[in-house]
């Protein structure tokens, strides 16, 4: 809601580089090969207690910079230039930030297309709530409430609240969670949030089970909890219209070393897991957040008449035409051809006249051919590619379509031969009659 509005307001239209006349190998890396990431913590021990997560980022080429939220030299920008490509906010209790960082500057950071990972925890600050709210995620208002699930918790000797949730309701998207997905349930201990169902930009990645609820375990309930069941989101992601990606987790410990290697047994189930799915989940989802997966771009959009490679300024109705586009996916290092069987193009004027699935050659080139409809007007080639976890591609190219000219119709119609012949026989008869009339004696 709020973000949606904000995204409309601020976002530039999807960045698509059109007309780069080059092949896949020479595509310039639009994104940094060694992204800089600012990690804001409110306690430096997070650096070591979550070191496995940070190490996996560092191994993948990220340059991490750890700062305390209270650091007076904090800054996201310097002389109008952003100093970082991503921000990790592992500071659930931070009320204020040092230096020039505040809520507005963090939101501007996201609005500039940069990525954010935000982890909340019990006792999260109003500041973090505001940031999450702007990203379309609403945390439980009761600051002492935690997610409790008496049917799907991980058995642990220290958890006497059933708040160590073993969650396994993942979003069905290989772009977000990788090809393998999570092999074991993900351990979660923290607070619940909800996303507005009308918000298309926020995706629930990890949801609670139907028996979960959000409440303060110490207090007897007086009314139904504000958040319960599958509407509770444990981890959500936002892909803004400007392709900025935001990960919001209700649990900071989800990323901790302790949870990464925690062997556990889920209540009521006989299988015990040697280690939780947290490490895989955290690594895969961080790949998504930092655009190592699911970031597409479309280049070289072309269309022409069959047999004529030049792009015309106008088509005539019933022309046979070909349309082609190249789509690539960013891997963190290079652009690799994107392969999918569901890319569609529309020939569109007020509503789609033609909607066709594009064929591809496996090298990122998508083509199709079709006949222009027998309706004239100003059409668009529209490619709206909106898949769960992928950047949205929205390319449109305008092209007018004209009707037949007067001399482009069919010339001799067999059905009209009687009319032709009657005229000419009449003319011939007239000529002959003139001669006979004048000279007969």
């Amino acid at each position: 809601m709020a973000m949606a509005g904000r995204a409309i307001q601020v976002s530039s239209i999807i960045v698509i580089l059109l007309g780069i006349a080059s092949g896949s190998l020479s595509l310039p890396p639009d994104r940094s090969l060694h992204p800089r990431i600012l990690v804001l913590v409110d306690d430096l021990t997070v650096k070591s207690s979550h070191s496995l997560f940070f190490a996996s980022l560092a191994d993948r080429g990220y340059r991490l910079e750890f700062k305390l939220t209270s650091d007076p030299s904090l800054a996201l920008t310097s002389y109008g230039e952003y100093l970082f490509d991503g921000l990790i906010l592992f500071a659930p209790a931070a009320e204020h930030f040092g230096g020039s960082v505040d809520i507005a500057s963090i939101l501007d950071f996201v609005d500039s297309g940069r990525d954010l990972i935000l982890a909340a925890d019990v006792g999260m600050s109003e500041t973090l709530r505001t940031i999450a709210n702007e990203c379309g995620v609403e945390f439980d208002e009761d600051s002492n409430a935690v997610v409790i699930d008496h049917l799907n918790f991980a058995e642990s000797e220290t958890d006497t609240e059933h708040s160590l949730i073993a969650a396994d309701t993942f979003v069905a998207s290989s772009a977000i969670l990788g090809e393998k997905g999570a092999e074991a349930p993900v351990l979660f201990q923290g607070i619940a949030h909800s996303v507005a169902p009308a918000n298309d930009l926020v995706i629930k990645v990890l949801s609670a089970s139907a028996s979960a609820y959000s409440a303060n375990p110490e207090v007897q309930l007086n009314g139904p909890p504000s958040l319960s069941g599958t509407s509770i989101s444990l981890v959500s992601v936002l892909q803004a219209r400007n392709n900025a990606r935001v990960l919001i987790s209700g649990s900071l410990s989800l990323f901790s070393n302790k949870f990464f290697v925690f062997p556990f047994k889920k209540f009521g189930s006989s299988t015990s897991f040697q280690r939780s799915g947290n490490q895989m989940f955290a690594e895969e989802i961080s790949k998504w957040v930092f655009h190592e997966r699911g970031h597409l771009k479309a280049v070289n959009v072309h269309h022409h008449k069959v047999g004529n490679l030049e792009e015309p300024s106008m088509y005539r109705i019933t022309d046979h035409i070909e349309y082609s586009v190249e789509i690539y996916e960013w891997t963190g290092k290079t652009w690799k051809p994107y392969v999918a069987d569901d890319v569609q193009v529309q020939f569109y004027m007020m509503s789609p006249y033609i909607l066709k699935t594009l064929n591809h050659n496996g090298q990122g080139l998508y083509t199709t051919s079709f006949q222009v409809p027998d309706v004239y007007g100003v059409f668009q080639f529209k490619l709206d590619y909106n898949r769960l976890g992928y950047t949205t591609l929205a390319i449109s190219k305008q092209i007018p379509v004209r009707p037949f000219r007067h001399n482009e119709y069919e010339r001799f119609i067999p059905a009209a031969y009687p009319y032709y012949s009657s005229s000419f026989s009449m003319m011939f008869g007239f000529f002959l009659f003139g001669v006979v009339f004048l000279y007969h004696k």
Partner: protein
Amino acid sequence: MDLIKSDFMLQLFEYRIAAAMIKKDLIASILEEKYQLLRSFQVLGIRREELITCSEVEAVLMSSTSVKDLFYASKCGETLLCSFQESALKTTVSRLLSSLDNTEALLDIHFSLGTLAFLKVQFPVALNDPVSIFQKIKVLSAEDGSWKYNPDDAGTSAKAAGTALETMGDLISLAGQAFDDAKIRYLKGVASKLFEFLEKYDDGTQFIDERPLDGLYGGGGPLAATSQVVKGVAVVASHTSGHIEVPAERVISVAKFFLTAGIHGSLLDMFHVLDGLGVLDKNRFLVPVILSVRPSVLSLSAKEVFKISTTTVLGSPVSATITLRKAVRANEKEPFLLNQVLESDETKGVHNLNDILNKLDIGSYDLTFKVKILEEGRYATEPITIRRVLVTGVASIPEVEVGVLDSDTGSTDYVKRWNPMSKEVVSLYATHLQKLYFGLDILSPRQEQFIPHQAFLKLKHETKVEHLFLLKPSGKKLELSLNLLGLVEKLNYLSGIYTIDLIVGDVAMENPVMWNLGTVELDLPEPPEGKVKLTSQAESPFKYGPRPEITHMFRPAEKRAPPTLSNTFLALTLVPLLGFLVGLKLLNTNMKNFPSSGLPVLAALLFHLGIGSILGLYALFWLKLNLFQTLKLLALLGTVLTVPGYYILSHLADASAPKVKSA
């Protein structure tokens, strides 16, 4: 005995995980790190000999010129219980002895003396002038008991004092006879004073904070500082006889500080925690004793019993008598059990809490223990310890009452007792003038009423809209009565079939349930004017994913006569011309009136040629010319045609006129 776990044993599990992680990627290269790893593993009881061997240690001791390396090599040797020959290390010893004379820096003295203290265990080492070394160290001290690292340091710190104490302790072990009682008393005074530097966290744990000065000499934070101070006091205590005055509750708070420090994945932090705990576990001033209650979650159905153990921080049992002062149910005030001495085994380290078991029901309890350690003096413990335990068990729900009541009279229209064993679903029908009623008993294993934390009833419409209600205790039952008239707005006037789910759960319940009771068909009134009825929130199926293809339907070609028909008519249209030609033939038409000579012939030919070309022009107009071209040519041809036309027509008229006159 393996059933018993102290609080530390739980922690230990986490440290083992941390250790396993370190194993993966850390091949410690620096001697200091090797020692830290060795020591951490030693405390954890893991043998890791591949890190460094005794011969490697000996090689360093023989060749290295850095006192720091010598110190850590000797520490490794101490951990590995290596033994060396005096002859091999003679030069090292003499070098260390001479370096002691030449330095005034605390750390250098510390490293040299530490190494010598280790070597002294193997063979005799004699210091040149122990008292002057003592004075050198003492010079660095400040009034309040803190210390400097170097004579020209700006500030002082408690951590440096810890290092100084450790060094002094080593000094005493090397040359104890050189120190009189006054010096020993001085040392003990410093040691007990050090505990005054403790700072407090909110949770009651105490620690020694780092000072800016420490940052210049290795840093390490409060963990390192606290660990160093404890080590210093322990070393002094181990080399002096008699008692060091240390407040017991402070030692306990420090022990708790280490126990709650948790794992942070970094080798250094883990080393300081484990080193500190290792020192606290075995020392000669005060050994903190921790009371642990296992299990902290007791299952009644598994017939578990509480075992209370008194152990040192690393889990060695300590004999004690324990009295259960009182046991209170959480959120209640009246204790149900008072002053009970616990039975224990022969070692008096483990105590059983048997009597309480038949009085426990499921729920949380606060147990207050009084601990009295049998061996006085050596141990420190909290006299009163409160532990919260959770007792779990199987709660029973014999049946769920499901009914439809009349709103006005409250009379029962329909009632059904839903049986959890058969799980036979009910299907109800209710209008907005009725009430839905749900009631159930939950009984604890002791057949008492039990109110779970989670007792929800969920109504779920076909369109996936969910409504959650809370069952509240009323008398002996948990009840929920839904007045549908008051709920129509909440239900969005959405009639239809709702499924009913009952969810009951609690931390103390070992059998949480989520039952589908059946369905209810609600017949609700239509919404009033102006209210929009919320329909399903179902997403568009094409939000993500391909849409069905669309192909354009081209306008169909106009209907035309088939070729045979048009060809037939083509032939038919030629019939009149044929008839005309036949008629001409039958009339025996001739050309006798054609002028026979001169100019009239030319005019006639031009006239008919003109008419012919006009007709030809029409054909061309049909084939390729447009109207303008045609009209231009027609005007030209027409104009040209008038001249011969006029001439030939008047000639013909002239030729026929006399005849008429003569006739």
